[in-house]
């Protein structure tokens, strides 16, 4: 049973098979993401009612919350892929961890930027040194450190291992960022969704948020697949299957 699973995993993880799978999945992911983002943003920016306290400015949560959520999700994804790469020597996992890092850094930067834009009218300042904001900034530095370490090493496999170890150690910070809103009485407001108390938002505000979150999630996997494909092509540029594909023969996936 177990050995069949590993055979299956290594088959799916082999570059040509992965490339073909990504090729088939990417359009679906891309279009679904676009649709979810258009619908979610229309719902959030046009249909959802105005907030009685914050007025129209609260609408930035339809970008800010999904971006912040993705900044943590991508890190966890990257660290799990790094773990798979280190433990089972699955090359495709290393590739996915590597290409996820810049995407995660972008989401983190987006969360920081939107938070800052929202903070100006609401708190009256672009930035406060509060635990939540600072730890999100630190998350950005974790991503940048990962990318820097990978780029500084010459041997590709050593670089992937070293960066992977760094990503795994950095996981310590993720719970701290996640719970900082509850542990410290920070200026940042509490979470919108509490599993015990339910949503602190009206239903008309909730569905667009869930839709944009789904859209960002799909966007991440779309970008991940596309970027992984590019890396796979670069790494395998001299292999037979790439040559066959480029010369127009339909490759067998």
């Amino acid at each position, binding site marked *: 049973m177990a050995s069949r699973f590993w055979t299956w995993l290594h088959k799916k993880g082999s570059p040509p098979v992965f490339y073909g799978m990504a090729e088939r999945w990417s359009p679906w992911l891309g279009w679904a993401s676009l649709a979810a983002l258009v619908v979610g943003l229309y719902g959030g920016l046009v249909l959802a009612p105005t907030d009685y306290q914050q007025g129209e400015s609260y609408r930035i949560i339809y970008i800010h919350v999904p971006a912040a959520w993705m900044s943590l999700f991508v890190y966890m994804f990257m660290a799990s892929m790094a773990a798979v790469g*280190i433990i089972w020597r699955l090359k495709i996992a290393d590739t996915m961890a590597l290409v996820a890092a810049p995407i995660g850094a972008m989401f983190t930067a987006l969360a920081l930027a939107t938070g800052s834009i929202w903070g100006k009218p609401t708190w009256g300042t672009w930035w406060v040194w509060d635990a939540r904001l600072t730890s999100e900034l630190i998350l950005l*530095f974790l991503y940048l450190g990962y990318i820097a*370490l990978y780029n500084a090493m010459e041997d590709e496999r050593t670089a992937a291992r070293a960066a992977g170890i760094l990503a795994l150690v950095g996981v*310590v910070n993720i719970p*701290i960022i996640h719970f900082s809103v509850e542990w410290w009485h920070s200026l940042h407001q509490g979470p919108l969704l509490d599993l015990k108390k339910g949503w602190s938002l009206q239903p008309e505000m909730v569905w667009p948020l869930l839709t944009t979150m789904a859209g960002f999630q799909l966007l991440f996997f779309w970008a991940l697949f596309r970027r992984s494909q590019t890396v796979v092509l670069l790494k395998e540029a001299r292999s037979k299957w790439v040559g066959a594909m480029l010369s127009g023969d339909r490759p067998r996936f």
Partner: protein
Amino acid sequence: MNAFLASFERECRIAWRQKMDVLNPLIFMAIIISLAPLALEPSPRLLAEVAAGFAWLALLLGAQLTGSALFADDWRTGWLKQIFLSPSPATVLVLARLAAWWLLGFLPLVLLSPLAAMMLGLPSASAMALLLALLLASPALLIFTALGAALTLGIGRAAALAPLLVLPLLVPLLIFGAGIVRLHADGLPVDGQYWLLAALSMLSITLGPLAVTAALRLQLVD
């Protein structure tokens, strides 16, 4: 255990002979502390307020200097290969190295920093709280620093990269540790914070040497 003790003794001797590696971080820390009144303003009230924070920062930065010396000569001397050839587990030998550096490289830093904070005007009762916090945090600090040093060992320009990797990882320590002095000065209970620091240190002592060993093993691949 014997291997650990023998290795520990060897590492202590070596660290002791490389006096500059031990002294440099101390001098560096003293310089940072003496820059504080110049960078801010020499008003006693302000300095007393920021003293503990400055001591933390100075320790974190001073530790980076120790980190750059931690595995510096090991390629040349062959230690890096020997620990993986040795019949005792490499992790134990790495742990011995870290323990020796904690004793000789870190303990002086940790002992100096409350003194330095007192020179900036920190009350002595708060200095004791600071000392305890730094002591509890120092094993984790050392292990994260060692990890950064081990990961960047093969890179020529490593000196600039390692702190970049390590400092973000130290944030949990700083968040839990730096608040202690203020809470203590306000007469609030700080036991929870001490336990958290101790827990982080225990976690790094148990898992850290494994990660450091894995990072060192990478250097042998090519």
